[in-house]
């Protein structure tokens, strides 16, 4: 641990990288909300500095093997110290670079996308808030600090999903996202507290160097690992907390690209990678993670197969790919998981940004209408989309191919062949749904007959001044990301070297992987692509997927396996109309009722006493009669010696 030193250049760079977005956020919120360009400039400048710093760090520390940790005391309590610090190691640096790069690109892209929105400054403020929280999360040196920024990231996600707060569905989606991830976070917090109670200071490096016979008994360790994984499930939208992510697509498209595909949801997987040695201590927990990753991947893929909303398809795809990463990590493929995280961030952001261009132009999310509207005429977005979809489907030479192969190789070495089979099924489904969208967009049924003009009530936005003026900010991020997607796959070797080093044996040995695996995977991808083309692409295709021919499956998939119904039932019936009503009524009736009964009793007693003093002769007579009777009773009892 290195204490803070102002003169340390690396350290200053780190501080600069994380703090500038915060400064931008505060400045925008406090002062420049009225001036849009200034706000955007501040935010962009901050993220650019941040990105520059992260590149600098990456270059500087490329060959440094030992993780660097800077830490200072933030809060010291009696027996508990909460440090604040930065942990620089390969995985955090890699993630930092990804985050800042995509933040930068998306913010540039948003210049055009969000132009003219009344909340333009607010948007950039929130984006800066997110950038700050995310970079700090990535560099956190202790689990508690990570949790703090984890929450803040969730907050910025909430704010950005509900950015168009006048739209009911958007606010609803934001609320749902926040509450569902919150449920995961509470589990995370519990796991964190469990670690804190047993270990003391949950510095990440310390946690990772725990051995299984160390401070925590293995049962508690498994339990803690599962609880912390609960946070990952919430944040990365894994089964069963997955349904918030498709709804989160109500936010602006750049937000979806940044938060809900490339970076924020990947934070869950990042946490997994971050604490990989800790999790690896418990084989039981790893088995459960593998299962959850697999279930999420398959479920989300099937949902993606029937969705009509372009952003929702990519949202499901995100869930499924995150599940895929978790599978890889849980199977022991540390590098495979992180590598897929990297490539996925690139091509998924690209997919969203391309979709954003279409949505911005035609103001609809429906893929069929976009196809009819003539999406194929926007050349650069279409090419970029093809590249990204290729990467998603795992076609060479795009980056996705390489990372998927790595994960499959890890799965092949796992305990049971069923995981590999599931992974291969996932590859097929992914290729299918990715190209389904592509085919629908590119080969509309009547593309030849209606070359231009308004179609189906949808007018392609006039290529007027606004469109032209903003097109450059739209296009450049696309091009950069497309090149990244093309090239990143070939950096597998150096990255592996960077992440793992020579001496570390964290992962399975790639040398002995089965030779047939890449070919099988490639074949399955191509089969998926072919099926998609046969159903949607070729002339005279029925434009009906094989799933949609089976009503039961279509219902099941498009209703998200009825998960939402379950949650609605749970929240509405059990929480809202069950406990909440019970407790509210308990307050009104039982507690207040008894209090009021007491007060009414007092009043009645007073009234009764007043009544006795009413001066009415008959009551006095009554009393004297009663006394007489009782006296006679008494004497009789006394004289006869009992009845």
């Amino acid at each position: 641990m290195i204490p803070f030193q102002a003169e340390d250049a690396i350290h200053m760079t780190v501080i600069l990288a994380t703090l500038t977005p915060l400064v931008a956020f505060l400045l925008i919120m406090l002062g420049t909300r009225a001036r849009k360009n200034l706000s955007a400039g501040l935010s962009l400048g901050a993220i650019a500095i941040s990105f520059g710093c992260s590149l600098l760090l990456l270059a500087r520390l490329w060959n440094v093997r030992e993780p660097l940790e800077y830490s200072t005391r933030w809060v010291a309590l009696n027996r508990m110290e909460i440090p604040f610090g930065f942990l620089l190691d390969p995985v955090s640096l890699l993630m930092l670079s990804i985050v800042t790069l995509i933040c930068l690109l998306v913010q540039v892209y948003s210049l055009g996308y969000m132009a003219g929105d009344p909340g333009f400054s607010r948007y950039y403020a929130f984006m800066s808030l997110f950038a700050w929280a995310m970079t700090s999360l990535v560099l956190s040196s202790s689990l508690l600090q990570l949790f703090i920024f984890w929450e803040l990231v969730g907050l910025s996600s909430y704010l950005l999903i509900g950015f168009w707060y006048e739209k009911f569905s958007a606010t609803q989606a934001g609320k749902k996202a926040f509450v569902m991830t919150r449920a995961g976070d509470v589990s995370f917090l519990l796991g964190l507290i469990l670690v804190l109670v047993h270990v003391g200071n949950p510095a990440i490096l310390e946690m990772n160097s725990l051995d299984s016979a160390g401070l925590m008994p293995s049962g508690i360790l498994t339990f803690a690992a599962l609880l912390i994984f609960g946070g990952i499930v919430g944040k990365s939208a894994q089964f069963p907390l997955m349904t918030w992510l498709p709804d989160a697509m109500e936010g602006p498209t750049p937000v979806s690209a940044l938060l809900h595909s490339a970076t924020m949801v990947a934070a869950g997987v990042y946490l997994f990678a971050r604490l990989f040695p800790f999790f690896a201590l418990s084989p039981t927990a790893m088995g459960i993670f593998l299962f959850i990753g697999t279930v999420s991947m398959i479920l989300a893929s099937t949902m993606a197969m029937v969705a009509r909303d372009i952003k929702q398809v990519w949202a499901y795809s995100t869930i499924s790919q995150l599940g895929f990463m978790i599978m890889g990590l849980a199977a022991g493929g540390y590098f495979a998981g992180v590598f897929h995280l990297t490539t996925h961030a690139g091509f998924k952001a690209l997919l969203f940004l391309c979709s954003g261009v279409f949505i911005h132009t035609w103001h609809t999310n429906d893929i069929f209408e976009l196809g009819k509207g003539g999406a194929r005429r926007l050349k650069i977005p279409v090419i970029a989309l093809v590249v990204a979809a290729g990467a998603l489907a795992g076609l060479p030479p795009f980056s996705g191919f390489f990372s998927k192969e790595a994960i499959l190789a890890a799965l092949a070495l796992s305990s049971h062949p069923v995981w590999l089979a599931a992974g291969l099924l996932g590859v097929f489904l992914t290729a299918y749904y990715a190209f389904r969208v592509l085919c629908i967009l590119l080969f509309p049924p009547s593309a030849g007959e209606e070359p231009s003009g308004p179609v189906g009530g949808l007018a392609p936005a006039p290529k007027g001044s606004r469109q032209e003026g903003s097109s450059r900010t739209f296009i450049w991020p696309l091009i950069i990301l497309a090149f990244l997607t093309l090239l990143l796959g070939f950096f597998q070797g150096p990255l592996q070297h960077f992440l793992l080093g020579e001496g570390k044996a964290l992962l399975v040995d790639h040398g002995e992987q089965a030779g047939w695996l890449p070919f099988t995977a490639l074949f399955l991808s191509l089969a998926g692509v072919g099926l998609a083309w046969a159903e949607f692409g070729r002339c005279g295709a029925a434009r009906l997927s094989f799933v949609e021919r089976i009503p039961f499956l279509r219902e099941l998939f498009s209703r998200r396996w009825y998960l939402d119904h379950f949650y609605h039932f749970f929240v509405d019936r059990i929480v809202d109309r069950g406990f909440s009503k019970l407790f509210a009524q308990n307050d009104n009736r039982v507690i207040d009722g008894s209090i009021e009964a007491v007060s009414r009793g007092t009043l009645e007693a007073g009234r009764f006493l007043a009544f006795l003093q009413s001066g009415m002769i008959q009551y006095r007579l009554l009393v004297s009669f009663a006394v007489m009777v009782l006296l006679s009773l008494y004497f009789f009892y006394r004289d006869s010696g009992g009845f």
Partner: protein
Amino acid sequence: MIVPFGHVLMLAGMLFLLGVFCTLTRRNLVMIILGVEVMLNAAAIAFVGAALHWQSLEGQAFVLFIMAIAATEVSVGLALIVYAYRRSGSFDPSSCNLLR
């Protein structure tokens, strides 16, 4: 006469109870006095029975006094009722609560 003393007392007791009931429950001043008369009546019966039981004229003499007291009570009581009625316009005993 061959009735036992116990039966005479029972009759007197029932009559007394009816008088008490009338006094306590009727919300009418005249009926209250009426109930008192019934009670006095019951007492008189008991006295006469007792006189027979102990073979003494003392009990009968007491009934004479009861009669006199009853006459007094009724005359003063009814005068009071008429007075109260003129003041409050009602026979209801709850309306006579000036001392409250």
